């Protein structure tokens, strides 16, 4: 009998074209329908998938040996030319081109060998390779009946690729009703015959409302749900017949202090005072129900830049002292804006931060906005403190710095999300250097130093890393296939049969 | 024995402020084929009397005493089912406003046929034939067509004729007509009254005609009952009452008609107005408006006196000088209410 997994996410994939948008949803889909060259394992190391093995040829070149005998859903054979075609397409994608910009060339050495070439030494070649889900170049070449190129990437219109899919992955899309349901069947010719996965059919239903999603699991309508809201963790833990899997996440939630708008924030002591005033532990415990790891830096544990010395420094007395030193004993008024439907408990966190700041005399005028309206405000830097959460697309520390703490520069685009205008050229330099360093250990040292420097500067207010949680019916062994990146390898999922 | 006998009828309304008596001690009788008129000013209790005959008084009203005897059986204690078989069948009613009496969403035919079917085991076809026949009797032009029309497609006079046809449908013994023509024009009123009279005479149907138009009463009825504030104050043969009223109120009513005065001269008016039910004066209810009122009128409710056919409830009948016109004192008191009643946004 067929084994079916009924699962609910908060959203279904926006498109079937995995190059159209770089988002969690797309990657989750990618891992079901496609296989990457290599993929992250639980220890944040790499496992080969379509690449059997790889080696660094020189500082600028990485060579991948591809698996043979792999078939696409369309029946086409998988070869090196598909990899080349895919990387080329990635470089055209608005969302992915940044990740693949360092690669100057991708070469098919023979049918089952490809090389990725960079101009400069580049330490993150393997990170980037996790984004290469080779597409069926034959399937996507040519024009459709109405004269559209099959490989076209477009956000606002219906392309061939957004409706049709041919990958090498464990599942084939059989039915898709956007916003309602998407159904997958196990790919019969799947190459990975060693995979323990025994699920024949997956039905994915989007359930946006947290409570309803949890209710669906509890009432037995769903086998597997994600995400689980912090408030319901306890319930799922307690309930018989279902279980919960939690992992420390990699998305950092922060507040940025705008130095251009607020004179006081130019003073390092004030910024430090703000950091001392905030009780990350309290937020993580009370608001997030332990569903977050208090943070004092951007890089989560396991990233190269993670500096274990940096600890949250909650100390209201110290904060008050610093305020006094800086001449702001009586405090001042600021505005704060945060989204209210972007991050877990975002608005509640902002409120808590506001009341914590009130205790050292900083009166906060807080507004929370839905994300669609929040981003334009954020781009306009319209408040003195703004919330931003960040997940590193490359699963690497440098990405945090580039977007969040670099001195903003409109031309190169760095510091795009640095709404605080924090600028420390030394830190920027450290990270730049690290990005040319291919020696992992050296590179880690450099990045950790950068984290320390920002910490000392109190360049922003780190709050916590948002944890991840999945709920499932007992007998669905999700734990082995889950990871901190939040793309479950469902191809390997085992459902216990009784 | 009279066909219909009403004895000492008391009807009350349980209002929020307490009970009010709409009818007190009302007695009259009707012989087979007799035509009786009930006159009185607005609020005298004429309609209540009419509804009570068929025990149609709706909550909060109820019959507090007395009995209504029809053909030997007492109606007011009858089981609802049995009463139903008398309503519309042996006693039927005609209401005041022909525009409101017919159900606007049912065809004339349906409303006639259902009435027949409620009382007779009869096929729809036969019922239709009877209905047609009755429509012919009331001189409705092209009756066939009318059966399928809705009330709003007909004029007021036509509707009232249809209501008469419905009243006659089952050849009743008595028709109770509550102001059947007040909503109609003079010419049509004359027509309808003539028709009613004709049919009643032809089929020997008893008629209780309620109206405030003394002219109509004088033309149609044989006997007349005058009501004031819930009581009968005078009754007797119509001619006698018109020509020689005994009660000061009846006299006043008749004398106030413009026909009774020389054109252009002052009319003989009764001062004041009828009391509301909640404010009925002690003694004779008419005493505040009466020029002949003496002490006894302020204290005792008068009993019927009178010889032969005419009966009148007045203490002063004998003391009165007949034909004395009324003193025109214009100023009177406003209606003061003891119980505030809801203001009705009509």
């Amino acid at each position, binding site marked *: 009998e067929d084994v079916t997994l009924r699962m609910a996410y908060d959203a279904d994939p926006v498109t079937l074209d995995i190059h159209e948008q770089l988002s969690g949803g797309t990657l989750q889909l990618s891992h079901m329908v496609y296989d990457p060259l290599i993929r992250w394992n639980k220890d944040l190391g790499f496992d080969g998938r379509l690449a059997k093995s790889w080696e660094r040829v020189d500082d600028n070149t990485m060579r991948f040996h591809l698996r043979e005998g792999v078939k696409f859903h369309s029946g086409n054979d998988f070869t090196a030319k598909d990899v080349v075609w895919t990387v080329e397409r990635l470089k055209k994608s608005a969302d992915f081109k940044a990740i693949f910009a360092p690669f100057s060339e991708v070469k098919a050495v023979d049918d089952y060998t490809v090389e990725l070439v960079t101009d400069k030494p580049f330490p993150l070649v393997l990170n980037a390779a996790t984004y290469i889900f080779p597409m069926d170049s034959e399937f996507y070449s040519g024009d459709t009946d109405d004269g559209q190129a099959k490989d076209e990437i477009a956000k606002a219109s219906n392309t061939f690729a957004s409706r049709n899919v041919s990958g090498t992955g464990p599942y084939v899309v059989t039915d898709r009703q956007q916003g309602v349901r998407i159904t997958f069947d196990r790919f019969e010719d799947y190459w990975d015959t060693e995979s323990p996965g025994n699920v024949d059919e997956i039905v994915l239903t989007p359930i946006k409302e*947290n*409570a309803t999603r*949890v*209710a669906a699991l509890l009432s037995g309508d769903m086998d597997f749900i994600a995400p689980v*809201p912090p*408030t*319901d*963790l*306890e*319930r799922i833990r307690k309930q018989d017949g279902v279980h919960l899997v939690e992992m420390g996440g990699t998305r950092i939630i922060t507040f940025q202090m705008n130095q251009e708008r607020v004179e006081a924030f130019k003073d390092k002591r004030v910024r430090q005072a703000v950091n001392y005033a905030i*009780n990350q532990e*309290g*937020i993580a415990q*009370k*608001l997030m*129900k332990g569903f977050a790891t208090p943070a004092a830096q951007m890089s989560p544990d396991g990233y190269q830049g993670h500096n274990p010395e940096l600890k949250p420094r909650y100390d209201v007395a110290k904060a008050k002292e610093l305020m006094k030193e800086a001449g702001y004993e009586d405090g001042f008024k600021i*505005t704060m*804006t945060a989204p*209210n*439907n972007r991050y877990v408990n975002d*608005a*509640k966190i902002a*409120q*808590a931060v*506001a*009341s*914590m*700041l*009130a*205790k050292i005399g900083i*009166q*906060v*005028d*807080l*507004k*929370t*906005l*839905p994300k669609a*309206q929040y981003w*334009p*405000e954020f781009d306009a830097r*319209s*408040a003195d403190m703004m919330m931003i959460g960040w997940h590193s697309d490359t699963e690497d520390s440098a990405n945090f710095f580039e977007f969040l703490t670099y001195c903003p520069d409109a031309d190169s685009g760095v510091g795009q999300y640095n709404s605080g205008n924090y600028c420390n050229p030394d830190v920027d330099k450290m990270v730049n250097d690290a990005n040319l360093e291919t020696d992992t250990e050296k590179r880690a040292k450099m990045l950790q130093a950068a984290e320390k420097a920002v910490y000392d500067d109190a360049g922003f207010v780190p709050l916590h890393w948002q944890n991840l949680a999945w709920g499932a019916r007992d007998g669905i062994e999700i734990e082995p296939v889950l990871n901190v990146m939040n793309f479950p390898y469902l191809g390997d999922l085992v459902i216990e049969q009784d | 024995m009279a066909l219909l006998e009403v004895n000492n009828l008391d009807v009350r309304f349980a209002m*929020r402020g307490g009970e009010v008596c709409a009818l007190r001690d009302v007695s009259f009788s009707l012989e087979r084929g007799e035509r009786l008129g009930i006159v009185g000013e607005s609020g005298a209790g004429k309609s209540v009397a009419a509804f009570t005959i068929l025990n149609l008084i709706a909550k909060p009203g109820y019959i507090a005493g007395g009995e209504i005897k029809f053909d030997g059986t007492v109606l007011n204690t009858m089981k609802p089912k049995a009463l139903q078989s008398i309503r519309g069948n042996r006693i039927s009613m005609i209401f005041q406003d022909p525009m409101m009496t017919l159900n606007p969403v049912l065809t004339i035919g349906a409303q006639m046929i259902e009435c027949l079917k409620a009382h007779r085991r009869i096929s729809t076809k036969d019922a239709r034939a009877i209905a047609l026949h009755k429509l012919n009797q009331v001189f409705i032009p092209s009756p066939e067509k009318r059966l399928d029309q809705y009330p709003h497609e007909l004029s007021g006079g036509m509707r009232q004729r249809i209501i008469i046809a419905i009243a006659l449908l089952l050849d009743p013994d008595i028709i109770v007509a509550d102001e059947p023509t007040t909503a109609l024009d003079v010419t049509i009123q004359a027509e309808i009254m003539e028709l009613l009279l004709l049919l009643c005479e032809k089929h020997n149907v008893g008629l209780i005609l309620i109206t405030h138009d003394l002219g109509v009463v004088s033309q149609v009825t044989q006997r007349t009952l005058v009501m004031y504030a819930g009581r009968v104050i005078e009754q007797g043969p119509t001619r006698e009452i018109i020509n020689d009223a005994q009660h000061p109120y009846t006299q006043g009513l008749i004398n106030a008609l413009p026909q009774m005065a020389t054109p252009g001269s*002052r009319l003989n008016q009764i001062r004041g107005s009828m009391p509301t039910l909640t404010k009925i004066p002690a003694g004779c209810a008419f005493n505040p408006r009466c*020029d002949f009122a003496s002490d006894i009128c302020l204290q005792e409710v008068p009993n019927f006196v009178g010889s032969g056919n005419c009966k009148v409830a007045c203490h002063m009948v004998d003391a009165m000088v007949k034909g*004395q*016109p009324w*003193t*025109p*004192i*214009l*100023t009177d*008191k406003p209606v003061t209410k003891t119980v*505030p*009643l*809801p*203001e*009705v*946004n009509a």
Partner: protein
Amino acid sequence: MSQTTPSAATASATTPKTNSIVVPGRWQRFRESYLIYSFKRDWMAQVCLLIFVAMVIGAFLAPLIAPADPYDLATIDIMNSELPPVWMEGSDPDFLLGTDSQGRDLLSTILYGTRVSLLIGFGAVILQALLGVTFGLLAGYMGGRVDAFLMRMADIQLSFSTLMVAIVVGAIIKATFGGAVFSDYALVLLILIIGLAEWPQYARTVRASVLAEKSKEYVDAARVMGFRSRRIMFRHILPNTLSPIFVISTVQIANAIISEAALSFLGLGMPETQPSLGSLIKSGFDYLQSGSWWITLIPGGVLILLVLVINLLGDWLRDVMNPRLYKG
């Protein structure tokens, strides 16, 4: 008795023995009115009024009687969050009804929240009434094109629920003032939004009763006197349409409070920093299943109670005043 001439009759009437009749004053009239009469006999109405007045007083005296000021962020400690009400285990006697997820005292928050809800309810209804009564009067009195136009507008607006109109109006307001201003003036704006969204209810009711009044002859009498339209509309007709307006107002206050709650539930209402009952329910909604039911159910209960007593009072008023309301 001799026949008196009319003039003599008039003269004799000038010396009436009616000095004994005292014309009641306004207050006495009110006390003797049917309204008070039936109020005294209806325990349901009395209980409802009592609860309602208690809630109103509690809400508006909140700054005096509430144990804490939920707007003063400095007094809030996250470590106090989600404490249960005193009758449960693990509670803190300082927080009678427990605390919410931020550690705010729930009792105080509810008192302040009720105030916000009531302000919005009353404010919106006043606005609706102003707009609706004016438009309804105009439409009913002027008739013709004015009537057709205004009623068509009302129709179109009624084709969308308050929610949708609120979303659209909210967006327009944001367009005009900028998104950030919204939360600063959320109270005023919600009053505006709900007021703008529901004026047709009034307009239709008022129009219906204006049409009924207009056909009455006292209006013709006023026109015959040569009074100007404005005077006739406002001095003669308006006072006579007051009782339906009064009755519909109670229902509309209840509706406005519910609308606000619904908007807040969808995240389009009061910000969580200045919570109304609706946003309190919403903010506690996430905690319902995790066991901290009081954060959402206590404000929910208060909301239901408030709306219920207003509705019951409205029902009673309708029974007493007996206006033939436009039902739509």
